[in-house]
């Protein structure tokens, strides 16, 4: 029973990180049908932005207090959001009417440019966050969760709820949903499509950046390739949930986290990625629309 609960908690915790990154994937795909493969690297940039601020401002911010960390989280989100915006403007917007494949290739190019750009700036060796959380933990029916993990999960849930409210309740959220259905009609209806797409990139990238800072603070080690695997996992989560669907991305992330957790417990930890990406293939072949995805009607 404790073991079962521990596996659930592990899965939820990992799923929270996948979710933050998967949201950006899904939003961008939903609105311009682009698989932004540089998205995982935005997560990495968030981690490095947080690292830089913590190292430079460690004294001024009073070491690694929670308040300082939250402030840094917000600044890093603004930074990565802006970067996502720039990336869209520079690499994707000029290609919006180009064939889908060209944009995909640009995205891969952008991914490498970001990775090795950071490698040039910070060197290829890993950096370590100058904060550390203690090992203090709470026991829930024998399963163990550290306070840091609990805090990270709360932040992730908070961000997800905020996003859901924004998309569902506000004017610009409504514009975003409209564009995902029919960008041309939106243009004719007087919606500034470019603006909304930029905003989508900003928000998606900010969420990934937040995930990066949290991963840096929790795991401690960051390096320039850290976004690669999590980017692929987030993509898998988005596909499982139904790519383009925002709640689906979160659901997919949680499902993937739990699948990995139970799958590795069952098969052994070396099977973790085989299991995760095996599910990607399974979903793409059996249910390409994912758990919550809508049936795509054939467009003429």
């Amino acid at each position: 029973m404790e073991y079962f609960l521990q596996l659930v908690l592990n899965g939820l915790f990992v799923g929270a990180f996948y979710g933050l990154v998967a949201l950006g994937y899904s939003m961008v795909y939903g609105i311009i049908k682009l698989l932004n493969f540089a998205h995982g690297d935005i997560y990495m940039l968030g981690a490095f932005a947080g690292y830089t601020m913590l190292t430079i401002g460690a004294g001024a911010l009073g070491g690694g207090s929670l308040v300082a960390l939250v402030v840094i989280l917000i600044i890093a989100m603004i930074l990565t959001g802006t970067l996502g915006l720039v990336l869209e403007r520079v690499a994707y917007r000029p290609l919006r009417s180009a064939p889908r494949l060209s944009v995909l290739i640009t995205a891969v190019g952008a991914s490498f440019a970001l990775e090795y750009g950071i490698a040039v700036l910070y060197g290829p060796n890993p950096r370590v966050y100058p904060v550390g959380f203690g090992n203090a933990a709470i026991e829930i029916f024998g399963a163990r969760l550290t306070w840091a993990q609990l805090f990270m999960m709360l932040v992730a849930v908070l961000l997800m709820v905020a996003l859901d409210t924004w998309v569902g309740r506000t004017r610009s959220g409504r514009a975003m949903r409209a564009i995902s259905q029919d960008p041309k009609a939106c243009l004719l209806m007087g919606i500034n499509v470019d603006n909304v797409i930029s905003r989508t990139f900003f928000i998606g990238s900010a969420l990934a950046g937040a995930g990066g800072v949290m991963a840096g603070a929790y795991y401690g080690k960051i390096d320039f390739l850290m976004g690669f695997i999590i980017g692929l996992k987030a993509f898998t989560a988005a596909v499982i949930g139904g790519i383009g669907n925002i709640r689906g991305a979160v659901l997919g992330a949680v499902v993937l986290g739990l699948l990995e957790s139970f799958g590795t417990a069952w098969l052994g930890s070396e099977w973790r990625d085989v299991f995760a990406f095996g599910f990607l293939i399974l979903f793409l072949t059996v249910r390409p629309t994912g758990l919550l995805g809508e049936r795509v009607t054939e467009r003429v």
Partner: protein
Amino acid sequence: MTAWPSGGEISMMRTTRVGAVAAAAGAVLALTSCGGGGITGDSGSGGGDTGDIVLGMVTPLSGSSAAIGPYMKNGAQLAVNEANEAGGVIGRQVKLVAEDGACDPKTAAAAAAKLVTAGTNVSVGGYCSSATLPTLSIFGKANIPMIIPAANSNDLLKDQHKNVFLLNGTGAQQAQAALDFMKKSGAKAIALVDDNTSYSKDITTRTAEDAKGDSALKVVSRESVTAGESDYSAAVTAILRANPDFVYWTGYYQEGGLLIKQLRAAGYKGDVMVADGSVDKQLITIAGKDNAQGVFATMTQTPQTIPGGDAWIAKYKKAFNADPGPYSTQSYDAVRVAVEAIKNAGSTDGTKVITALQAIDGFPIFSGKLKFTPEHTLSEGGFDILVVKGDGFVLNK
């Protein structure tokens, strides 16, 4: 003490997605270049039969591992000087010729060909395993014995070149050293964790095999994690469920640091030990200083950790006005072993020297008494147990 990755790991450690492709391409190029007749000249006894005895050394003097080259070269030179002061060997003086291998297969292959042309009698170099690999057949074709001081990948032994002898401990020996220490520290239930790379998995597999027939301890859990990821909760939960009192990690320091951190966060209180790829100060930084205290490590010997190494260090300092580093002692020993074998063979003929090397029994070197196994590896010694104390690794006493 700082950490130095042993020769076998350095190439793997720096490998990234792109690097792997480049390295593979490099290896292929190097292989084709030697297959295409890169070496001309006779394939007889290598060097001349009169004049100075030439000891050739391929070692990185440039590139990513450039720091290691001088340590090896000086260590070897020290032994050469001593041999010459004692009147040389079989009436001839000994000369060391070092060539830059740059830890790169292509450069190393070219350097080896150059050394063959220069009339090398015995090769005493080899640091990066990947760069040493293409030199095996080049020296082999010229029938030149190789005493390799640093490179220790099992790949070097795969083709069973009869001219290749390893002076550094191999994965099998590291596994044995680890197991001995586990038994000594009273471990009952051990968990083995690797990162799925051949170097790392080799050690866990051998440790598990060695432990099989042992009644004192049992391998209760074997896990593999993916390098490059951050979350190892799956492995950690599985390890904790098996309830071990000793965890042995055989991968590199980045994942090792994370694993130690997450094991401690999950409430693991038992011992942790890491293999030589993880002996780096960064391991302590990543794991967190508190979490890393008391973590053990199996590590190849450095002059600073060898008992009685102080006098040798003083001698080295006097000769080169610099501190010795990793593989200084092994290079020193490689030359001494070469000289001993030539003396016993009474000739520099490759075949006779190889026979003499195989026959060496009990020759004292830093890691113990030298006797080569039928596979041409050390039959004893080679690994120390270190422990994390404060900010660094110190010899466990």
